[in-house]
């Protein structure tokens, strides 16, 4: 059903460092990467990724998981998964569970964890292309973009605990979850913030024709509704447990999250290992492959992680420094695989069009002058790829690479871009702006402290001026509080995290004149119409076509100051006995490719251990 049958990056553009083929591999693998990076366990580059690292993000926590982006290497893979065994990943100590309630957790770790235990009503069968299938829903249909009908499976039961009694999962559970988030109230009527309250408020009417059917009518058509319900943060928790722990929702307790899914939580306590045990009553018989998972809490120090990995105490490894991962793989080249995964935290340069950059030609000049490929080389050792307004991770909707490399700011011919940029800068009177400060948040400066020199030097040289400088800032003190009032600084860093393959809602929020998060106050009627039409259609090819037209307008206007630059790639390693969840398995010494979009449920379901693989020798015995 997907229109994206072929690999997006097989049609790709060049990267300075990677060969075309090499890049394609990298891009693909990356997918699971950020997902993983952002969610399952990373530490710095913000850096936590598919395998076992922490993900960097502008403040988003990410536990590293060895599971997220893994790939299997040898003939054993061809024989298919073998059930049994316990895998050990890594949860990075810098990540914080802020709530046991998935509705009220504002950080990502709780959502990450919930994907081992809970289910969504629908889910991605392929997160990168956006193909969706039923999860708790046996079937679903959308007569139009505003009305949805879900038939709930009849064989789903809650984990049998004193709170649930092992009762069946019904449409009432879905109704409660949606209504609770939309209302933003606890059981006793207390109002409290829910992370996705705005989204659920868009539900105008929720009805339950019978115990296993639920219908949703949206206040306005939204073709991306199912996409949002498929995201890793849309798991449905148990009502009894949620209400029992409503008062003390910040103290970790395995009893707070009864399962419907692949695993049950055996241990979830602050400062202790996280333990998952295979759910014997999982409604999907035969799943998952593993008997359990253990996530010990490691700090981000690469030495500890490296020792644990090389001595097979954990099954995967990823580091903010890809050369470290590479050196480990090279030292065990016959026993390890390599996977490349795109990092979901998109790197941006934001230019304030309400203040310093009121003339769109100025932001277009800056957008064109920014040397994206040089930055990928400088900061990420060449592992990355340029992104347009829709990132290359969202391969189904992004402007094709062939088209993108013909556009300002993306040309392989750097001199041509420089000429365009200088002409625009001069025509718009850029010299009159005086000193321009492109601020860098401290979260970025941690891993890349010399950015305050690199960025102004690059821009000054490209535009032939001496106007640019860079100073330190923080998201929480200077940027976020000033977004809505329009006085935010110009800044460079990660800004948002790609959480799904469908970019339509995000584009609407960022660029539609009526959006409350249109911080640049973009007001382009043509663009508004395209964004509206794209969002209401349920026809995927039409949605893609309209979204690409909108992207072209955005690019012609220097991205209205929200200058998307690139997404980089995380490198992960694993022992051959560990068969991860990847889009393309590593073969014959070539790296594999992870999913670019983090789906949440795929790693818990798909990972398996080949205990007969020679590399399994010497792995310490692991019990729950």
């Amino acid at each position, binding site marked *: 059903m997907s229109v994206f049958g072929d690999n997006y990056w097989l049609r790709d553009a060049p990267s300075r460092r990677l060969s075309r083929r090499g890049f394609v591999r990298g891009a693909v693998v990356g997918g699971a990467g950020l997902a993983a990076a952002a969610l399952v366990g990373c530490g710095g580059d913000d850096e936590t990724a598919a395998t076992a690292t922490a993900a960097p*993000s*502008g*403040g*988003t*926590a990410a536990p590293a998981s060895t599971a997220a982006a893994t790939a299997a290497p040898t003939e054993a893979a061809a024989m298919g998964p073998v059930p049994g065994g316990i895998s*050990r990943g890594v949860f990075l*100590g*810098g990540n*914080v569970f*802020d709530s046991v309630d998935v509705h009220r957790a*504002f*950080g*990502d770790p709780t959502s990450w964890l919930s994907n081992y235990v809970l289910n969504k009503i629908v889910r991605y069968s392929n997160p990168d292309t956006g193909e969706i299938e039923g999860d708790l829903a046996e079937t679903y249909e959308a007569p139009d973009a505003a009305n949805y009908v879900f038939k709930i499976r009849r064989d789903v039961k809650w984990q049998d605990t004193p709170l649930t009694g092992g009762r069946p999962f019904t449409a009432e559970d879905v109704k409660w979850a949606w209504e609770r988030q939309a209302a933003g109230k606890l059981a006793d009527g207390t109002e*409290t*913030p*829910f*992370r*996705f*309250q*705005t989204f659920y408020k868009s539900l105008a009417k929720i009805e339950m024709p019978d115990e296993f059917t639920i219908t949703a009518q949206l206040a306005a058509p939204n073709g991306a509704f199912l996409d949002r319900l498929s995201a890793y943060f849309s798991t449905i928790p148990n009502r009894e447990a949620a209400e029992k722990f409503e008062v003390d929702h*910040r*103290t970790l307790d395995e009893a707070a999250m009864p399962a419907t899914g692949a695993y049950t939580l055996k241990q979830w306590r*602050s*400062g202790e290992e996280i333990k998952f045990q295979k759910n014997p009553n999982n409604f999907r018989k035969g799943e998952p492959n593993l008997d359990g998972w253990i996530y*010990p809490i*490691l*700090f981000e*120090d690469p*030495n*500890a992680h*490296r*020792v*644990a990995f*090389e*001595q097979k*105490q*954990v099954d995967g490894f990823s580091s903010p420094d890809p050369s470290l991962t590479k050196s480990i793989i090279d030292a065990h080249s016959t026993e390890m695989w390599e996977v490349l995964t795109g990092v979901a935290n998109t790197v941006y340069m934001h230019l304030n069009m309400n203040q310093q950059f009121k003339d769109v030609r100025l932001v277009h000049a800056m957008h064109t002058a920014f040397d994206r490929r040089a930055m990928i080389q400088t900061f990420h050792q060449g592992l990355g790829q340029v992104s347009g307004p829709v990132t290359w991770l969202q391969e189904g909707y992004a402007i094709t690479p062939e088209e993108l490399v013909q556009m300002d700011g993306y040309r392989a011919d750097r001199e041509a871009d420089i000429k365009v940029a200088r002409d625009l800068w001069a025509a718009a009177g850029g010299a009159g702006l005086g000193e321009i400060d492109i601020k860098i948040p*401290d*979260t970025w400066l941690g891993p890349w402290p010399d950015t305050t020199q690199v960025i102004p030097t690059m821009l000054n040289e490209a535009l032939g001026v001496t106007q640019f400088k860079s100073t330190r800032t*923080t*998201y*929480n*003190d200077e940027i*976020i*509080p000033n*977004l*809505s009032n329009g006085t935010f600084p110009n800044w460079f860093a990660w*800004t*948002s*995290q790609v959480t799904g393959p469908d970019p339509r809602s*995000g584009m609407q*929020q960022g660029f539609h004149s009526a959006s*409350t*998060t249109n911080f640049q106050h973009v007001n382009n009627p043509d663009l508004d119409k395209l964004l509206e039409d794209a969002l209401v259609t349920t026809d995927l090819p039409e949605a893609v076509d309209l979204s690409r037209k909108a992207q072209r307008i955005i690019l012609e206007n220097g991205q209205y100051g929200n200058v998307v630059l690139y997404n980089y790639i995380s490198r992960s390693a694993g022992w051959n006995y560990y068969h991860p969840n990847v889009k393309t398995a590593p073969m014959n010494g070539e790296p594999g490719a992870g999913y670019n979009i983090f789906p949440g449920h795929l790693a818990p379901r798909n990972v398996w251990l080949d205990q007969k693989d020679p590399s399994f020798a010497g792995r*310490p015995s692991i019990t729950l």
Partner: protein
Amino acid sequence: MVVLWVVASLVFFSTSLLPGDFAQRTVATNLELADYSEALKEARRLLGLDKPVWERYATFITNTAMLDLGTSYDSRRTTWVELGRHLPPTLELGALITLVAFSVSIPVGVLSAVKQNTWVDYVLRTFAILGVATPVFFLAILMTLVVLKFDLFRIDIVGSPHLWDDPAGALKLYSIPAISGGISGGAGIMRILRSQMLEVMRNDYIRTARAKGLNDRTVWVRHAMKNAMLPVLTVMGFTIAGIVSGQIILENMFNIDGVGRYLFTRLLIRDFPPFQGIVLVIAAVIVTTNLLVDIAYAWLDPRIRYT
């Protein structure tokens, strides 16, 4: 008490000056999240971070005076409970580091002094200078790479065994940090001890001891070393304080869940109550240790009397 009050105030206000807080750490920084500001406000309210600094300071000082060192925002456990959880690994590592440091530095320092200007002295001094000059993490990384390369033994990073329940496993885990930390710390002690020994050996009472016909061993150990140890004692005081405060670098490198690593992670996630409380405890330990060192001075040197 005045010292502790000053330390408490310094710790409180210095942490208050740091950018960010725990509430921000728990609320995803995602600009697509329209409700971010409201969520942040609520998170701060729940933690009491919405109150003015002076009010939080008054509460902090009042509670501290009653030995209530606060509760972790993260784990919801009290600082005393957290200290109890993280102190044992730190004491284990600290004891082993101290053992290595003194068992290497004292004989080496004495030997280097009594063999002054011989090849033995040159070799030992070179060793000491290298020990002082080499960063502890560098030495630890080198040793780790050797262990990994030759697969010498398992460093149980994940299991983090204790000496009392798995002595062999614990010794393997602690071996590299203990040796690297011990060499790094002991090298300084060795140099101090050597110079003190040389100075003491030139004193009249040593000449007298020799004139009485005492053998070299008795002169060095009973007469010279006891006096040469006085400055070393000062260093030992700091070493013991260092044990309590934890070896931040080594604990992180080997995932040892001790006080040093705990403090560092608290700082990282801005979980300030346990950070402030434990720093205060460390300050109290240092003050107490210095007092004990002063008392030990009087015991070692009969000329010193406190009135």
